[in-house]
């Protein structure tokens, strides 16, 4: 009996006192894209895109991008100020993308990202990217596609996703970046956005070391970079390579390939005198998707192409590794291998100084396994 009375009492109490943590969907503004820049006086400027549907009736109608921005000493402070500017509660839990201005990225992205990691409601699966110039320019720009149907956040996020599919950028989000960012033995790379007049172009990758951006890579290099990370397969991992100089007609010198399978063997060795050497070996199986020269009938001809591709890709890979060493960015994780398998050596050395000087090479082996429906 006492139980029933108690239950009744407490259920009344609970129901009467109401609901504390309600966050009504229709009473909040959803940030879909957030940009961070440093202002000249060292403050953080947050730019947020809040898409609003124009017609409440159908839901599929036009979307109008509202852009808000605010400044503050920290990321959170600027968010709070942003909140005050907006009529309803601002929610970042459905954020799709975080964009850093190049300057901000070069300073320290963790200081800004901290608020995302700390907030239990934040969207950790949002993508991160670095923008050329200011992030606010990318967020507030009126691109052709964002005029009518989709919000800026979705537009940027989809553009990057397409680039991930094409392997021009590595697939990262706020959470996946985090363990690598903390890792003393590994670094990461993020998509690099360049705003053009009517569209945004995912134009390569921004290379990081620790929490800071240290350089960038463009176009085709980025594909080889992704291949070197050991990524197995994406929707279309395609490359166009110059394989000879013989033909006068320039177009005939090129072949386009699509990587079907990519196998990476990554060896890190420490010699008895603590010399570190690292070697990445890629074994690729590719399909030729374009080769105007035709006549892929003979085995020799295919072998020629294979050899040419192997040579050219190995060269590219080594160039990339050299570049990375120059930037002091250990994106493939040589250091991690050292920690795991050569822990005593790792403890002895100062990796930041050592890394640019290690013997670090790559070799690529290409095998053609198909060539479309014509020979």
């Amino acid at each position, binding site marked *: 009996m006492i*139980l029933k009375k*108690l239950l009744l009492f407490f259920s009344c109490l609970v129901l009467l006192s109401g609901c504390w943590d309600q966050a009504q969907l229709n009473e909040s503004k959803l940030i879909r894209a957030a940009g961070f820049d440093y202002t000249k006086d060292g403050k953080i400027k947050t730019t947020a895109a809040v898409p609003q549907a124009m017609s409440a009736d159908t839901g599929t109608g036009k979307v109008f991008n509202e852009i808000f921005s605010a400044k503050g000493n920290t990321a959170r402070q600027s968010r709070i100020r942003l909140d005050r500017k907006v009529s309803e509660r601002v929610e970042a*839990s459905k954020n799709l993308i975080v964009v850093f201005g190049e300057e901000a990225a070069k300073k320290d992205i963790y200081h800004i990202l901290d608020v995302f990691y700390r907030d239990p409601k934040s969207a*950790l699966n949002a993508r991160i990217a670095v923008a050329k110039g200011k992030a606010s320019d990318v967020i507030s720009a009126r691109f052709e596609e964002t005029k009518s149907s989709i919000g800026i956040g979705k537009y940027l996020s989809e553009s990057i996703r397409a680039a991930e599919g094409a392997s021009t950028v590595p697939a990262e*989000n706020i959470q996946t970046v985090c*363990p690598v960012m*903390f890792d003393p033995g590994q670094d990461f790379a993020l998509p690099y956005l360049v705003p053009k007049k009517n569209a945004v172009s995912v134009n390569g990758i921004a290379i990081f070391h620790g929490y800071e951006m240290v350089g960038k890579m463009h176009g085709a290099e980025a594909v080889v970079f992704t291949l070197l990370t050991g990524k197995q397969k994406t929707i279309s991992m395609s490359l166009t390579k110059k394989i000879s100089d013989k033909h006068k007609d320039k177009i005939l010198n090129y072949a386009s390939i699509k990587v079907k399978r990519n196998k990476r063997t990554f060896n890190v060795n420490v010699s008895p005198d603590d010399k570190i050497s690292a070697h990445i070996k890629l074994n690729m199986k590719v399909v030729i998707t374009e080769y105007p020269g035709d006549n892929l009938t003979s085995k020799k001809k295919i072998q020629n192409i294979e050899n040419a591709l192997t040579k050219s890709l190995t060269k590219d890979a080594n160039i990339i590794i050299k570049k990375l060493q120059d930037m002091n960015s250990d994106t493939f994780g040589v250091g991690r291998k050292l920690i795991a398998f050569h*822990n005593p050596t790792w403890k002895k050395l100062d990796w930041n100084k050592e890394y640019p000087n290690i013997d670090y090479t790559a070799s690529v082996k290409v095998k053609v396994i198909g060539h479309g429906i014509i020979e």
Partner: protein
Amino acid sequence: MNSSHTITHRQLFFVLIQSQIGVGVLSLPYTLFAKAKTDGWISLLLAGIFIQFSILAIWKLCEMYPKQTIFDFMPKILGTKLGLLLNILFIVHLFSVCIVILILYNNIVSKWIFFQTPRFIVIIILALTCVYCITCTAREIARFLMLVSPLLLILFFFVGYAYTDVHLLYAFPVGATGIKTIISTSTDALIALLGFDTALVFLAYTEGKSTSKLKAMSYTSLCVTLFYCFVTFTTYIFFNPVEIVIVPEPVLYMLKAFSFKFLERTDLIFLTIWIVSVTTSLISYLFFTAKGVQTLFKLHHHKSAAPYVGIICALIASIPGSKLDVQMWSKTIGMTAMIFSALFPILLLLIAIIRKRKEKGAAST
């Protein structure tokens, strides 16, 4: 004891699994990492072996005094007065375990979903739900605990999903912290594995061969240890060793980033299912406590003790407010719980055996 209240040894297995898996699972990797670094999962395995001794002791005790709960046979082993005193102490210990479950549950819920809801409300809804659930026989409790067991598979699946983005290298080098640290950490792991001690009351209701009971208990601890190990190991290879230090609930944090096409923020779903696990372990312990109170006050049915036990626990559990308070409470109670649940049965068994020997000796001479 009414024969219609018995449970089978298969049900015992699920009862113990559900009592063992509870609040601990979310923060276990973090606590272990704080001491043993990435070797925490080894400590966990060791702890799994340690508790086997306690399990054996509990089983032996219950075999010596069949169909009796610990409160019934404690006075028989230690004499009426000392037995009564220890009964009271044991009940206090059980209260404190219930309280710490409520505190930790509230700690996580208020950190992850209910930021503004008053502590007391969050705690009382769980406590009252459990009070409702314990106002019946052991058999019905066992049925329910068995019914919700498939949910553990969902938790397993969610954690397993992390393998889409793990860095196996983070787990290396294995054994770098040294044997000593690993062993000392296993005491922390032991606290998370507590829950098998509810066998002290549930064994009294279990029918069947005593070997199959022991088997059920051992399999329980094996399954739970492996499950915890899997969770811990997964978080260790998902998070960077540097990162995990700042993430007190790595399991939830890990899931926060996952999204499916039809559902995002899997941590919320995980948290919801995890609450069932918390409820089940609290049900076991509250039932245990209510049984103790029943024996102590010689009540007709533990049902009448249940509401008081629940409300008292809820009231005390809503006292600690700050994070540090919570840590202190959970640490102190964790230590006493370890003594009472893991070491005490072994001690009790030794005394019981000596006493029996003496009696036998006395009888023969």
